[in-house]
């Protein structure tokens, strides 16, 4: 839940305990606890909630999602209504 925002790891303070690092949120910088993503490297993106990095962001997955959204549109544009109707019929027949 909850407000968590992506940020880029600028630096890691290896001597800190718990592990902390400086995160850049598009021009805003804040010291953040990295203890839960302790293998993160400078330049990677993490998702941060109340001062804690909760997870590393996976660029490959992000790009795959965006590509999927693009292709949704392409299928629409190429096949238009015919594709839409076919899809509806196919899905309709699968439903109970």
């Amino acid at each position: 839940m909850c407000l968590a925002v992506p940020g880029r790891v600028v630096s890691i303070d290896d001597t800190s305990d718990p592990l902390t690092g400086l995160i850049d949120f598009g021009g805003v910088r804040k010291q953040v606890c990295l203890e839960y993503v302790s293998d993160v490297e400078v330049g990677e993106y993490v998702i941060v909630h109340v001062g804690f990095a909760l997870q590393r962001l996976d660029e490959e997955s992000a790009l795959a999602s965006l590509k999927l959204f693009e292709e949704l549109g392409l299928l629409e544009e190429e096949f238009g209504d015919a594709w839409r109707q076919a899809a509806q019929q196919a899905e309709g027949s699968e439903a109970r």
Partner: protein
Amino acid sequence: MRYLDEFNDPELARRLLDEIRATTTRPWALMEVCGGQTHSIIRHGIDQLLPDEVELIHGPGCPVCVTPLECIDKALEIAARPDVIFCSFGDMLRVPGTDRDLFRVRGEGGDVRVVYSPLDALQLARRHPDKQVVFFAIGFETTAPANAMAVHQARRLGLANFTLLVSHVRVPPAIEAIMTAPACRVQGFLAAGHVCSVMGMAEYPELAERHGVPVVVTGFEPLDILEGIRRTVGQLERGEHRVENAYARAVRPDGNPAAIRMIEEVFEVTDRSWRGIGRIPGSGWRLNEAYRDFDAEHRFDVTGIRTEEPAECRAGEVLQGLIKPTDCAAFGTTCTPRTPLGATMVSSEGACAAYHLYRRMSEPARPREEMNPVG
């Protein structure tokens, strides 16, 4: 890749919306159980862009709003003590207890401070050894690793003046409670992405199977929410009920094992009351035996506080999607954003507050119709 603007692209949003429209053949009621998602839906006006058949029910996903009255009253009593610095996330300050809120306690001389992170509260404890520093540890699974780390550090450092007032809640038991309630209308869930960033997805297949509902782990940007809806509606139209991950960039199937280990080190599962809803078995966390000394309820002996919530409003039914806010007799009369009866009228994302705003735009139509852009 900045992981923000890319997922707020109007053209891709239009494509997702087209796809949702093309797929939807009949009415479906989906619930998001996440204040952050509700916020994003309202902020971007996503609910008005969906086909009429797709209804979004804003579930009990705001940790601030579901924190029980009893716990808030305990917070108010502790915060009013002269030896205490009471630290809280900002949005807890305005939530009403029985007869006042934390703002009022501050107005009456209490040392109440807003912090960004529980570690900031820990710092305050180190800087003020003569004061008792209490952190109001509320939140869902997302916030638990942060609060767990703070108390873990306090124990390591032997800080005798730092405690947590814990009111943690867990999503899966809430979904279970919603699905087993009579007259439940929810047909699919958008699972909260950041809860799953921490906990992973292991708790959901059983829920999806037992109740026959699709559960789609969903992110927070507009495209993420639309994709969560697209996948849920797709499953419903095909008669499926699986757990899917529509937020793979931030959610791994096993979550964040280090964070889960810390939660287990510090907390234990307990029954928890949800404000406006009632007691849900196993739906919360409290500090375990090893951390009992860091539990504010024990240190300040507020265990005796018991509050009865008057059954005046029907927020619980609204949160479940059983009734519309306008079905409540108190709506807009005795209950307004200025004088809320229930949590759903307190925050701007609350279903009642949102209805109240949109109803002012053009009475007496339904919100979705009212919200269509003019021209």
